[in-house]
């Protein structure tokens, strides 16, 4: 069974987001990690491989720094990795999905896994778009996967409960929290990871032109939420305090 995992490198969940002089997100000195939802996908791929045999191939779009995240997933036990550097200033979901779909179609697959969303931009589009381009069924936000002959039975979160669906393979399944608890790489795994193949490609290697993958969405502006002001405690007797509160709500907060 050949399992592809779509993987993204993101900021650490605890990273403090700041903007640089140009109003872009400042990447200096930020700790980078595997997108946690993608990490569930990696773990699930490894478990499926351990049970049914096969190969786990990681595919990612991004700069050279993504190699660190890929190396970590290789250390967890994945077999090989492909990194496509689009060499573009900005990419959107269309760009990423177009590149991933092209790369994946060249690799061959029985199952494609990914996180249901990335924790940075949170758009939750890429896996679905890849499925669309490859004309594959997609099941989102799965919390359990069972592989049977030529099909997958997946449990997914829905409003107020769960849904169990059956889907023929190949298919794209996206991981939700609760699917599994990812393993930590061991030192042996880390040392083996260095010997595992990591292919680096660009758009031309995939036969894509910059135009074909050019983003369709442009970010106009990034801004940080306003820091919350300290609360105010009104003192004194209740009738006076209530009067002061109503006054503050009307004149300062302007909500009544």
């Amino acid at each position, binding site marked *: 069974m050949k399992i592809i995992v779509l993987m993204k490198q993101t900021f650490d969940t605890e990273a403090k987001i700041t903007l640089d002089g140009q109003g872009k997100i400042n990447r200096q000195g930020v700790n980078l990690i595997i997108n946690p939802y993608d990490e569930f996908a990696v773990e699930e791929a490894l478990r499926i491989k351990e049970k049914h045999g096969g190969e786990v191939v990681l595919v990612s779009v991004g700069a050279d720094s993504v190699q660190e995240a890929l190396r970590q997933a290789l250390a967890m036990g994945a077999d090989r990795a492909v990194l496509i550097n689009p060499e573009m200033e900005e990419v959107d979901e269309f760009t990423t999905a177009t590149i991933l779909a092209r790369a994946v179609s060249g690799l061959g697959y029985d199952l494609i896994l990914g996180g249901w969303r990335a924790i940075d931009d949170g758009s939750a589009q890429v896996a679905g778009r890849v499925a669309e381009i490859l004309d594959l069924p997609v099941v989102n936000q799965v919390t359990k996967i069972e592989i049977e002959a030529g099909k997958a039975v997946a449990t997914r979160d829905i409003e107020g409960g769960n849904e169990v669906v059956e889907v023929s393979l190949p298919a794209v399944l996206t991981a939700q929290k609760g699917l599994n608890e990812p393993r*930590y790489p*061991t030192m042996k795994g880390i040392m083996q990871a*260095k010997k595992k193949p990591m292919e680096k490609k660009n758009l031309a290697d995939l036969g894509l032109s910059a135009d074909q993958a050019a983003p369709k969405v442009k970010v106009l502006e990034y801004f940080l939420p306003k820091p919350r002001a300290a609360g105010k405690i009104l003192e004194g007797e209740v009738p006076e305090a209530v009067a002061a509160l109503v006054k503050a709500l009307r004149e300062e907060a302007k909500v009544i």
Partner: protein
Amino acid sequence: MQYTLTEEQELLRETVRRLAKERVEPGARERDEKGKFDWEMVTLFRENDLFGLDFPAEYGGSDAGMLSLIIAVEELSKVDASAGLLIDLQELGTLPIMLAGNEEQKKKYLPKLASGEHLAAFALTETSGGSDVAGFRCQAKKDGDSYILNGSKIFISNGGVADVLTVYALTNPEKGGHKGAAVFIVEKGMPGFSVGKKEDKMGIRWSDTAELIFEDCRVPAENLLGAEGMGFHIMMKTLDFARPGIAGQALGIAAGAYEYALAYAKERVAFGQPVFNFQGVSFKLADMCIRIEAARHLLYKTCAVYQELPKDMSRLSPEQIRLSAMAKCFCSDVAMWVTTEAVQVLGGYGYTREFPVERMMRDAKITQIYEGTNEIQRLVIANTLK
């Protein structure tokens, strides 16, 4: 010689840091309060293959070198000093076998120690003290194809939980503790071997510290490491190789306390601003940062030197011996100083059990005492300067 960390070591550090934060830190306070050995931690470290980092690959280890082990000890000790100690004790207890064991002994014992299926302990200290070898009484008398051990050991880390113990005993008391000693591999459950009093300690409270009692304990002669009379040499070299482990634990405690105090100082507001803005506080943090960085460099250099050395009974140079003693002495002194200052940065809160720095301060103290007090370390260092 290695100076910067390899890509693998960086990833190991990231991994152990994360494991420590997610799986070790949450229960640290409770384990400290209970003061009871925690098998769940053993299971966690087995599952993540942390016991055999510096064990040879041919016996199931990761063969990742001493620096990798120390990085893991450091990261675990940042959140729980007893946890860092646990993987370090595996190295300490096994070192006599790695250094002086024959092929059969290594084949028999190392794989299960590398995986953590078995735990190890090194038994040296007696009531007369840990460094006054001349006062040692524990004896091993040859009887046919075995030795009969009699005597007791105290303050043995992992003593009550270890499956494999390397025990220092006198085979020829007339020759004294230096020339008449040997090291034996004793297994848990050997008739005549029992565990006595468990210590209730100031710090590293859930690490097991016990008295070992040998009453006509029959140990097969094939469990003798090296030869009779080699005990002192094996013991000294074991300690030379093991001291960086305690230094790593101490460095981790210091770094953990520093990181906590730094984050606290940036959050805690007094007189209308974070206390970090006051030089009385920020200078303390600057001094902590200096000492920790200096300690780390000394220790990593020591590890880089030691991991190139063969693990056998060849002699170490005075410079090599000195490095290991300096790393242990300096890192542990830094740990004591930094943790004390960290409590001061947190003020009244730092003195309460609600915050981890008081535990770190209690944990730091032992690193100045065990595996040779820092006074003994200075003696060792001074001896190399003669």
